[in-house]
């Protein structure tokens, strides 16, 4: 690659995580020429460290439809790429307080009203499903047999495989160094390998996306927040079947799922670590993030995990995964353009749900770029919903709102049948 070469494509996607890769694949499948530029390696950011939990029943039908369609897209991908991506373990939500029990009643009612497979389980049934979990304090539980998780690494490689066979070009170690602006619109991307001209540029930069938007003087209200989960190593005394259901315990703020004979346990705590991406070194590698042995968030996670899985403690052999999530003020992503800037399509802010949203998001982004509209109901995820809105423009305000949103994951107890939109 010559340092000053100029190239052209129909679309340049900035960011080789699941959002960018899915979008690139869908665009190429429909005949567009696509170049993906990635600062590091493909899938090496939060996509590579995600748990990938798929809970399809959401607070709105639009969100639920996106996830249910996503499963179909993934099943097609599995056929094309010949890998197992979706592991249908079923999912279990448990309640140990009366408020949480009411949430489950509401959720089951809502699910049944749209013919989604969901039902209550009693403690004995739960214990049968999950012999390694403490169940004697549960007041209620519900089970969704069609849920599970997407395996992030397999998803990434399937997107790449199918994308490549449709002509997508992937350029790794190619950070975006700037955007090309011509008469008020974005028309290309500058990289160390030269400038790539394209009428459409996708900002799928994950935690970096607000900085990429800033290159075009646009404000994208996302914030980067740290997240940590643990994976226990296989333990003969507490075997975790690979098809045992995922668990959500909103009271303890935990999620869990099987992984390679062990258990992934993660937590959306009340507080988290804010990351200012502009302060990280240029060659920052998310996979090198490591928890200190006395990391307070990790200690809180282990403490909560021990309450639900009494065999887990600080000395349990485990791997700790740290990553950075991209949050938005309402926990929903930004998809599409801003009113005053043509050519730059945002696709970011998945707030801990990028893996499972990515299959349908790719279709939506391809619709928006190639057709200008989509049949999906995207009102809730449009990129311009905070455009020029007071209180959502300064970094400090944005960070504060995103931080509050993360803290409210699993935290709030709501009446009515609108479960919070958490994983």
């Amino acid at each position, binding site marked *: 690659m010559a340092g000053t070469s100029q190239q052209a494509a129909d679309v340049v996607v900035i960011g080789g995580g699941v959002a960018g890769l899915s979008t690139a694949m869908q665009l190429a499948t429909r005949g567009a020429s696509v170049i993906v530029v990635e600062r590091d390696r493909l899938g090496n950011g939060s996509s590579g460290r995600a748990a990938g939990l798929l809970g399809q029943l959401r607070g709105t039908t639009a969100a639920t439809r996106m996830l249910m369609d996503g499963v179909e897209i993934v099943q097609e991908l599995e056929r094309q790429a010949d890998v197992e991506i979706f592991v249908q373990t079923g999912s279990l939500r448990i309640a140990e307080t009366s408020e949480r029990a009411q949430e489950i009643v509401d959720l089951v009612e809502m699910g049944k009203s749209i013919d989604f497979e969901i039902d209550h389980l009693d403690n004995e049934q739960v214990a049968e499903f999950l012999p390694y979990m403490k169940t004697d304090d549960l007041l209620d539980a519900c089970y969704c047999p069609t849920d599970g998780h997407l395996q992030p690494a397999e998803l990434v490689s399937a997107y790449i495989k199918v994308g490549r066979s449709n002509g997508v070009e992937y350029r790794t170690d190619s950070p975006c160094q700037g955007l090309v602006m011509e008469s008020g619109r974005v028309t290309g991307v500058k990289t160390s390998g030269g400038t790539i001209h394209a009428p459409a540029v996708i900002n799928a930069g994950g935690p970096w996306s607000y900085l990429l938007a800033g290159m075009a003087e646009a404000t994208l209200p996302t914030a980067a927040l740290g997240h940590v989960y643990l994976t226990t190593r296989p333990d003969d005394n507490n075997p975790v079947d690979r098809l045992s259901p995922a668990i959500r315990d909103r009271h303890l703020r935990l999620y869990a799922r099987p992984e390679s004979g062990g258990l992934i346990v993660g937590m959306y705590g009340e507080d988290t670590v804010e990351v200012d991406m502009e302060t990280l070194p240029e060659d920052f590698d998310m996979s090198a993030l*490591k928890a200190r042995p*006395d990391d307070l968030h990790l200690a809180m996670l282990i403490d909560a995990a021990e309450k639900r899985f009494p065999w887990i*403690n600080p000395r349990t052999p485990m791997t700790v995964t740290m990553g950075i999530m991209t949050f938005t003020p309402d926990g929903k992503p930004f998809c599409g353009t801003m009113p005053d800037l043509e050519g730059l399509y945002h696709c970011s802010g998945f707030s801990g749900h990028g893996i499972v949203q990515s299959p349908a998001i790719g279709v939506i982004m391809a619709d928006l770029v190639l057709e200008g509209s989509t049949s999906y109901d995207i009102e809730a995820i449009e990129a311009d919903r905070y455009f020029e809105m007071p209180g959502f423009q300064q970094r400090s305000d944005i960070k504060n709102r995103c931080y509050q949103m993360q803290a409210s994951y699993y935290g709030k107890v709501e009446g009515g049948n609108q479960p919070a939109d958490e994983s």
Partner: protein
Amino acid sequence: MKILVPTKRVPDTDQKIRVRDDRQGVDIEHLPFVINPFDAIALEEAIRIGEQRDSVEVLAVGIGTALYEAELRTALAMGADRALLVEVEDYDDSRGGLDPWNVACLLREIVQREHPDLVLMGKQAVDDDAGQVAQFLAALLDWPQATCASAVEIHPEGLRVARETDSGIETIETSLPAVISTDLRLNEPRYASLPSILKSRKKPIERIPLADLGLEQEPRIEILEMEAVSARRSCQFAGDVDQLVEFLRQDTEATEE
């Protein structure tokens, strides 16, 4: 029983290590530091001994600048009872700190002040990989030593230590006091529990300026220049043996005899 655990604060080896442009040290901006992993294993072993026996005191020792307090706090959160920082004003983390001989001399002073029954330390620090301090220290103290321990057992007469050698496991017995250096497979260091982290905030970190030990530093090693190994490794398939030989020749600049 008192166990002294000397530790070294080193760059996290999972990070990209960059040599500074002047080639006189590594670039420590953005670089997270950790307790040397082998020392963390020694610390874990000391804490476990303390959990299994009555009245064991675990003392973690660090040598460096005030920055070291963060890692000593980690040691306290993991379960050390006390921590001691020997403050060295011109200590340079970016160049691996003091050389092994001076570290051993300094630790001898600490041992003579604290009178531990056992010194447990990593077999080497992962920054300079010297692997000399435990042996120097044992010699300076005229104590028995067991290096590269993969199992440690304390019994009334002393110690039984399994050592990992190239030809298998060697088991040795020794009396106390003694110096043990720990190998990778001795244990897996724990994460600190929430109560332990909170408790550690009240534990003392004693600070001793190097000058107070009455020791002159006598550098025995001079670092002339640092150089980074090539960061990018690539894979190539060799179609046949001839091609493999050709690859090797190119890489090693070997010539045919």
